[in-house]
């Protein structure tokens, strides 16, 4: 496979994963903003996904509709849905001969939706949940179409590699932001809704209720988001999948690159696999989460060096 093509598929997939995760997170945060105005703040969301200065955040902070507008449509915001879908589609456009027609059509139509006047109007005047739901549906469609039409080859492996790297980063970052609100003090008493919305925004609420059954407790939340291998958005699950799909790229023709990247993935995966809530609290949660995202970024650089470099 052409290096450029692998690169584009990888990024297309990362942008779509990020779009999906941001949309879900926006939906739940919006719902909670309607619930509990006093305790709710958009600040954490804007800090992870936006590129605004603190004073600009303060201006937006309490106006849900403006936040949605900024997060969905703003062209200056690198992580706006508008920009990410445009980038995903731009990457897809350059590799149309390596994805199925169905997948291309799906992304192309999504692109026309995020650029359409109808969306602008809906964000300004419509019911935000309905709007976000339509967009989430487009993402779901993308994942479904990928799953049922894409050939099981190298291209799909690079897409999955990108997807799970992105997902691990997202989960680690969302957790880190929430914990920073508590100044990483796991015994600090918090409102139940606080954790509930965190879990809902990564679709982990029902699993939590079944698994931990003990009300909301910071340590259990951390356990689920980092270590639960049955939870599709946990960091460990994502790293397991990353490992699995990268293994399929093993080839006699790029032994050096493969073993370098495989080593970094294996090392990170082991680090998470053989940690627990106790040990990471001892190291320092922020430090630990930060290390995970840095390690993933390094894996990205190695992929770039050994697989994608073409100029």
């Amino acid at each position, binding site marked *: *496979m*052409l*290096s*450029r*093509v*692998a690169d584009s598929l990888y990024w297309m997939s990362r942008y779509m994963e990020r779009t999906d995760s941001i949309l879900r997170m926006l939906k739940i945060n919006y719902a909670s903003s309607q619930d509990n105005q006093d305790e709710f703040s958009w600040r954490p969301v804007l800090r992870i996904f936006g590129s605004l200065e603190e004073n600009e955040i303060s201006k937006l902070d309490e106006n849900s509709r403006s936040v949605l507008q900024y997060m969905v449509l703003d062209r200056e915001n690198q992580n706006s849905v508008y920009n990410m879908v445009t980038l995903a589609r*731009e990457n897809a*456009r*350059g*590799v*149309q*001969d390596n994805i199925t*027609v169905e997948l*291309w*059509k799906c992304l*192309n*139509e999504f692109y*026309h939706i995020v650029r359409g006047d109808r969306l602008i109007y809906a964000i300004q005047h419509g019911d935000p949940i309905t709007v976000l739901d339509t967009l989430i549906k487009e993402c779901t469609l993308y994942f479904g179409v990928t799953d049922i039409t894409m050939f099981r080859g*190298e291209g799909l492996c*690079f897409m999955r590699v990108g997807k799970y790297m992105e997902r691990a980063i997202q989960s680690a970052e969302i957790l880190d932001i929430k914990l920073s609100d508590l100044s990483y003090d796991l015994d600090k008493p918090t409102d139940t809704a606080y954790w509930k919305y965190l879990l809902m925004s990564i679709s982990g609420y029902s699993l939590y209720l079944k698994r931990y059954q003990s009300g909301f407790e910071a340590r259990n939340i951390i356990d689920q988001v980092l270590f639960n291998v049955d939870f599709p958005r946990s960091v460990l699950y994502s790293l397991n999948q990353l490992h699995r799909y990268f293994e399929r*790229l093993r*080839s006699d*023709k*790029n032994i050096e690159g493969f073993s370098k990247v495989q080593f970094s993935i294996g090392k990170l995966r082991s680090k998470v696999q053989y940690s627990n809530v106790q040990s990471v609290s001892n190291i320092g949660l922020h430090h630990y989460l930060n290390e995970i995202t840095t390690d993933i970024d390094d894996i990205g650089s190695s992929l770039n060096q050994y*697989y*994608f*470099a*073409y*100029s």
Partner: protein
Amino acid sequence: MKATELFQKYPLIGNTWDEMYDEEKVRLHYQNVYDSLSSIPPDELGKKEELAKSLFMSQGITFTVYSSGEGIEKIFPFDIIPRIITAAEWDFIDRGIKQRLTALNLFLKDVYHQQFILKDGIVPIDLIYSCPHYLREMQGVNVPHDIYVHIAGIDLIRDHDGTFYVLEDNLRTPSGVSYMIENREITKRIFPDLIPQNHVRPVTQYPNILYKNLLALSPGQVSAPNVVLLTPGIYNSAYFEHTTLARLMGIELVEGRDLVVENQKVYMKTTSGLQQVDVIYRRVDDEYLDPLVFNPESVLGVSGIMSAYRKGNVAIVNAIGNGVADDKAIYVYVPDMIRYYLNEEPLLKNVPTYQLSKMDEREHVLKNITKMVVKKTNGSGGYGMLMGHSATDREINDYQLEILKDPRQFIAQPVISLSNAPCYVNGKAQPRRIDLRPFALCGPGGIEIVPGGLTRVALKEGSLVVNSSQGGGSKDTWVLAQ
């Protein structure tokens, strides 16, 4: 059948061939479509037009126009009423293009080797050396099977009596074939059953024929030659066509930056290292192909590709340097080439053409400029033309000064009116001017022309310019089986 609302008040333009009407009568081969369309309420046709647009849009059959840093997707306007060519007309076109292309290929081989035709004084030698597309770098280079033009998009027009004329020979990187294929797909969607009812010959085999020809050009003893399509990239207005062709042929779509030349061999950069490339169907113009040999500023090409080509390590399609054969001043001599190389009379006529480098012809043209179309010999896309009958005095004056600076770079032709075909405009059928670009594929086994082509339409009322850059659109082009 009486004229229905759709075709009511369809004006017949004098002294012009109408594809559908023979005087007041509908031509036999249009009758079926005429009846079918007449039975559809006009506003229903409007919906079909909308459907066609949204199909083009959602499938991404678009080109991007960049303004203020933002890309806007545009579709190439599509007229829903098909253009119909009879089996007899097609048979003539088919033979005419094959004859012409055979001669043009022989001409290119000759010009870049022994130059008999120049020595025999059939084509003036100074015309060759003054042509910017004649490339010395190609002199003496042997190309596989002596084929230079693998893909030709020869433009045909019809004069007032229906005679076909060749307007220009596009022998470099002709585009538009994806619209031949996609327009047909759209017609299938908007007019169910109409195509089988009319016994229209299919066009879907085009990519298979092209792929077969490309494989046959592979220079090495390789069991599975690596064929790629080289595109200038996503900013090119024909990018959609490049991806479509690559996808339909199952070959890799590459950009210049994906390729590298080592040891006079071309490789592509893959996730498992370098992989040799055997055949390149390039959609990058000659001058951008190799910055070491041609335009050094080019970032679209591949450094050293020319050396690999000359060495015979890679086949390039179309061959480099073909521009010398579709230069509009050399066009004048194509009928003579046919006589010279094939000893046959040309089937397809040339439009009468004046060479402005010849003093008497130039004077004649300047005297009668309002009846002339003046063109640059190496222009394309409908740019840099002077339409004498509609130009202002000032435009004519300015243009004359341009001509006198370098007369070799200009030719003039009397205004040819182009045939009319009915188009769906504002709820009514209206006559609009059209041309025809069939796509001929030339491989070691001979020349094949897929029955169909790109019919371009001048959508502006009264306009004679069909180029997409000048507000032109296209139609599905039917060749009937019987």
